[in-house]
């Protein structure tokens, strides 16, 4: 685990407004490098908006974001791996064709990197079937492989375990723990907190666009845990 004093993520008064609706309300927080954070909260709590803002996909209405010491998203982009709720994959292409294309966007010419990323999520890189014909779980795993492709320093994962069977989800958690142990900073949003029990370094609780609690054990915030499994 990395005990670097400089936070990997630094949020200062971060707000995001969609018309009259405040998706994030003056969020101020620090997240250390080399740790696995699990963001929890009910639907509409602001988890996805927070992750999209961290990824630079959504511009803050107010406040500042610093990622890996960079306040300019353009400089931080090559260091980030992002997995969204949608797959961010082309349904008509095979897994390998998808990853080959995304590798090119990061200037990666080594094809072995693509097949390694696919194998890391327990998929077969020789599979010629189009991604549109994959099961939802396979698609999620390939989406995770895409996020890992550029060997990012920071991984932002939005509900990576949804629609994934328990065995595959546990394998994904092991992969995340290995990456965390290798020094990567990982932020995961999920409704399946139990999967990260004993693996996540910290559970961050959100409600109505604000961070309301941070705990080492997800069971400690029992009042908000009703919709988690």
């Amino acid at each position, binding site marked *: 685990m990395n005990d670097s004093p400089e936070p990997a993520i630094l949020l200062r008064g971060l707000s995001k407004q969609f018309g009259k609706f405040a998706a994030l309300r003056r969020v101020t927080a620090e997240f250390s490098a080399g740790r696995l954070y699990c963001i929890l909260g009910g639907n509409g709590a602001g988890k996805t908006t927070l992750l999209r803002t961290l990824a630079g996909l959504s511009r803050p209405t107010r406040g500042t974001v610093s990622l890996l010491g960079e306040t300019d998203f353009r400089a931080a982009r090559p260091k980030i791996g992002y997995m969204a709720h949608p797959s961010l994959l*082309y349904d*008509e*292409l095979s897994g390998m064709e998808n990853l080959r294309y995304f590798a090119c*966007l*990061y200037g990666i010419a080594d094809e072995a990197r693509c097949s390694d990323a696919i194998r890391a999520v327990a998929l077969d890189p020789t599979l010629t079937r189009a991604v549109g014909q994959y099961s939802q779980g396979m698609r999620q795993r390939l989406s995770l492989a895409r996020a890992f492709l550029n060997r990012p320093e920071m991984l932002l994962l939005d509900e990576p375990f949804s629609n994934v069977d328990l065995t595959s989800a546990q394998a994904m958690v092991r992969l995340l723990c290995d990456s965390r142990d290798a020094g990567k900073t990982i932020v995961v949003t999920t409704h399946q907190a139990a999967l990260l029990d004993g693996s996540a370094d910290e559970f961050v609780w959100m409600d109505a666009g604000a961070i309301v609690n941070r705990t080492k054990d997800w069971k400690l915030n029992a009042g908000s845990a009703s919709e988690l499994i």
Partner: protein
Amino acid sequence: MRVCRATLTKDLRLEWRSRDVINAMLFFALLVVVIFSFSFDPTAEESRHIAGGLIWVAFLFAAVVALNQTWARELRNDVLDAYRISPAPANALFLAKAIGNFLFVSILELLMAPLFVVFYNLRVLGSASSLALLAALGTWALVVNGTFFAAISLRTRSREIMLPLLLFPISIPAIIAMVNGTTAILTGEDSARFWLVLLGAYDVVFTTGSMLLFETVLHAE
């Protein structure tokens, strides 16, 4: 250039597998040709005077189908977000999309040209090479603006309506040049030089403008 080539290859592969764009464009253009041929019964001489307008109207409407599809593909599964968070330059994406659309519309033109000749009894009296150059410049004018405005209308609720609303007014100078240039070449009565120069200038201005502004469009919410 590497990203541009990879994006273009990926788009051509997607089109080869789905044939969404080519089929929709062909069907639409075919309808226009057939309906117009039933609506008018021109002599060969009259045809040469009106064909410029008919041809470009057919291609313009058919191109809109392709232009809408080109970005719709990137919205499925939010794939465009994967591009937005990558360090790849925005211009490479724009250029690849514009070249892809240029190829699709050019294929349509090549397939539809013999039909126009048959249905409207056309024969080129001017220079065929000038006609080819005019078609290339005109097609680029359509697709470069179309690709840009399709990207702008991407996040609007009625993007299929929004694209023609944005594209057609700004394309008027190019359409005038295409129609008049084509008519001049088909009839052999005038030189098309002025219209070719106008189209060339239009292409340079709008290609440069689109490429300068595309990064802002891509990263807009």
